[in-house]
């Protein structure tokens, strides 16, 4: 018989974690699906009793999103326009039934290359707060997700929060997802962009693409090329002309690498234009 524990506070959870291996249960929406046809044989640490890990708060220089905060919580919360892309992504995470349960930290810990939450969080400069009984550390999201279903989580650690520096919450953001149908679909590719406009000129640009590499990536070369451009057709022309070496798509059941490379450039263009306030968000379906 496996063990099941539902601690009442984080310290109790961390003490249990330091004691041996557990599988952490949050929203649970990928808990059984990730096992495939294997039966669950690990001990279950249910963190749904940890109310301190749910909600969004301003703490000093950061906006701190508790690990258990659901996508529905994010959609309903009043947040600066820089979070619009994250809210659009939240609406694309499975269905409303999934969004009501699934947590933001679960999306990161599952480390799927197709996780819709990751590109917008990358454009917000998100960092991941990891705690163990003896240590609290903060890792940039780029350094937390290491590969397909691989993270930097160490034994005894759990994610307790996602921290977004207020310095990265200027401007407006957008998110564009390409799937084989309009809703309830795993992404073929998705793009997030956050653009800060000053006097009609791009002052700051953050662009990230998911599902086109093992881990979603910021497009730093493109970001540099966009800075200083006037809002208008120059943005789309620059996306078309800039090489995107970060993209290393694969062939799989959802699309070929070649198709992904083409499609990614198109949705990056749409996300950049939408975030710069110059284009209505277009719905994409293959």
């Amino acid at each position, binding site marked *: 018989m496996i063990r099941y524990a*539902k601690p009442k506070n984080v310290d109790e959870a961390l003490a249990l974690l330091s004691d041996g291996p557990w599988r952490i249960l949050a929203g649970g929406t990928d808990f*059984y*699906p990730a096992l495939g046809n294997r*039966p669950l044989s690990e001990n279950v640490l249910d963190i749904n009793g940890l109310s301190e890990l749910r909600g969004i708060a301003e703490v000093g220089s950061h906006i701190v999103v508790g690990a258990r905060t659901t996508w529905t919580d994010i959609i309903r919360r009043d947040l600066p326009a820089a979070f619009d892309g994250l809210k659009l992504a939240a609406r694309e995470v499975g269905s*409303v*039934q*999934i969004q009501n*349960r699934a947590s933001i930290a679960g999306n990161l810990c599952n480390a799927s290359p197709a996780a819709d939450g990751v590109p917008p969080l990358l454009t917000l400069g998100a960092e991941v707060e990891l705690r163990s009984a003896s240590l609290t550390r903060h890792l940039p999201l780029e350094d937390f997700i290491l590969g397909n279903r691989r993270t930097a989580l160490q034994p005894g650690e759990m994610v307790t929060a996602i921290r977004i520096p207020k310095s990265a919450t200027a401007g407006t953001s957008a998110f564009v997802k390409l799937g084989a149908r309009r*809703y*309830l679909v795993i992404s073929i590719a998705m793009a997030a962009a956050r653009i800060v406009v000053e006097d009609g000129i791009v002052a700051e640009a953050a662009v990230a693409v998911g599902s086109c590499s093992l881990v979603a990536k910021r497009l730093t070369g493109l970001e540099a090329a966009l800075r200083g451009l006037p809002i208008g057709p120059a943005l789309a022309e620059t996306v078309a002309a800039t090489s995107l070496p970060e993209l290393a798509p694969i062939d799989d059941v959802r699309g070929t690498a070649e198709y992904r490379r083409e499609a990614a450039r198109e949705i990056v263009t749409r996300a950049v234009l939408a975030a710069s306030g110059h284009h209505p968000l277009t719905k994409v379906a293959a």
Partner: protein
Amino acid sequence: MSLSIGLTINGQPRTVALDDPRVTLLDLLRERLDLTGTKKGCDRGQCGACTVLVDGRRINSCLALAASLDGATVTTIEGLADGEALHPVQAAFIEHDGFQCGFCTPGQIMSAIGLIAEGHAGDDPERIRELMSGNICRCGAYQGITEAVLEAQKTLAERNRRDAA
């Protein structure tokens, strides 16, 4: 070792002894509490046939561990009708042919009730389609489902206005 949990299911307080913490809410309802109205379709959160309300919010019961829901209030399709009188969402599904084989219907109806309670669908059919997209219908009764949701939403709003007056 058995784990005892308390749930309020369709208004009835129930105490359940789980002999295994791994049982899902769906299996608990169907296999142990004989509430077979909630259907098992894909058993992995992709089809919505198992949708129930937990504390007023729609979720996929196939993904929820029952043990984790100690203290929760659960509403299933069996808890909707008032005797012989159908819930307005049930009545609207019949009125608008919102089904053919009927297998996905309990999940569709529970999802629609959750959607209407969320209160931000408005009367835009495209928004209804987005918010109902967690419920797949293999017979393709989507047109009738969308119409049923729109009408039930109106009926429930009128009823709330009357009750408030």
